[in-house]
């Protein structure tokens, strides 16, 4: 082409303004066929993390999030903006996970070493060693509501207020579920000996 003088351009370049989640959701409601997909991509990692940590199995997590997103896609008209879009999406995913757990009554992945099988000698130490479980397997042993609370607050790093908004329960309920869940996990992970009767 050869060297040409600088091409004439507009002196003003439109600023690169990030499109917000609210704008994408509004576009989706307005009939934009691509906007919801962009929302999905933005939040895919956090939705995936929540589902995998709650359900334990990636294939279950993929299905649960897909169900949740279809529900969100159809139900976008009912979202009134009372929470952040990200909070709303996490809420729908958590509910899909809880529905799946109720339907399938998922059993823990690992069964704790029964006390009756503890080798002789020093049963307390042996029990402590035997019952040390990987964190993910330990999470699977918690009741669903405690598991979800611990995943949101301790794994995902949500504040108690954020978790309460996602779960639509009071903050005190989140704290209580976390307390029970952590106490149980402390035993399962071998940090604490289970108190006898």
């Amino acid at each position, binding site marked *: 082409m050869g060297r040409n003088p600088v091409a004439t351009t507009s002196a003003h370049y439109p600023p690169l303004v990030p499109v917000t989640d609210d704008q994408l959701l509004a576009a989706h409601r307005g009939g934009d066929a691509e906007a919801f997909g962009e929302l999905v991509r933005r939040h895919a990692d956090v939705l995936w993390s929540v589902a995998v940590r709650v359900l334990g199995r990636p294939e279950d997590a993929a299905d649960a999030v897909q169900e949740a997103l279809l529900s969100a896609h159809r139900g976008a008209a009912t979202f009134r903006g009372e929470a952040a879009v990200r909070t709303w999406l996490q809420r729908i995913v958590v509910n899909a996970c809880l529905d799946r757990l109720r339907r399938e009554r998922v059993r823990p992945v690992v069964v704790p070493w029964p006390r009756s099988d503890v080798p002789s000698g020093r049963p307390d130490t042996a029990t402590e060693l035997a019952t040390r479980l990987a964190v993910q397997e330990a999470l699977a042993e918690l009741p669903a509501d405690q598991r979800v609370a611990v995943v949101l607050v301790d794994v995902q790093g949500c504040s108690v207020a954020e978790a309460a908004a996602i779960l639509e329960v009071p903050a005190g309920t989140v704290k*209580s579920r976390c307390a029970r869940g952590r106490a149980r996990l402390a035993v399962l992970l071998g940090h604490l000996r289970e108190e006898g009767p």
Partner: protein
Amino acid sequence: MTPHRPDADLLADLDAGVLDAARAREVRAAAEGDAAAAAVLDALAATRAELGALPALTAPPEVVARWSAGAAGNAGGDPAGHTAGVGTGVDTGADTGVVDPDDAECLFTVSEPAPPLARTRHRRMRPTLAAAAVLAAVVAGSALAGRASVAPPAEDGRVAAVDLAAAGAAAVGTTDVGELADPARRSGCLRAAGIPDAPLLGGRRVVLEDRPGILLVLPAGAAGSVRLVVVAPGCGPEGAGVLADTTVGR
């Protein structure tokens, strides 16, 4: 009254902030100097640390693609919650050739039968908004990865090849494309360049690596992608010089 040693559950409540201030003070006092209570609190702290140390997960691309396809396949539904046509559409400035929403190509592949005429009205596509989001994500990702300087084009339109995504993002919704504003000329240009004709999502004149050109932002025909093409200014049916051709997105 000698305070009873708090049990693990009560200490867990203390640790989690469940207790009111007065009760928390009582329990804390009872736990003071008690080795067993300290062990419980240490165990809870270790548990929280272990939970927090779980690695962040990245959704596998094929799973995300499945989720997007699932949502797109559901696109025949009415997300606005009504069946009448909606009032808003894309302000396209039709005489500049920016995309006519009724002709716009989806950024997603949607496998479904053509919708009935009565519903077509409110399936207005806003590809400029989604294209801007795609390019913004690419630019942000590049910035985080330290791969590119993601400044928008300089005032004189100079663009480095690595900044093409940023230039594309800045171009979405604009139509500073000179003679290529004529849809017929633009179609001929793309045909001559061997690029499938597609609705224009935006464009502007640029100088790419010291060569003047016209940046065209086009849908890429794949979910969540856009194609950025820089053609020489004289591009038309009689011939095209392609200075850059890249697809960005996920």
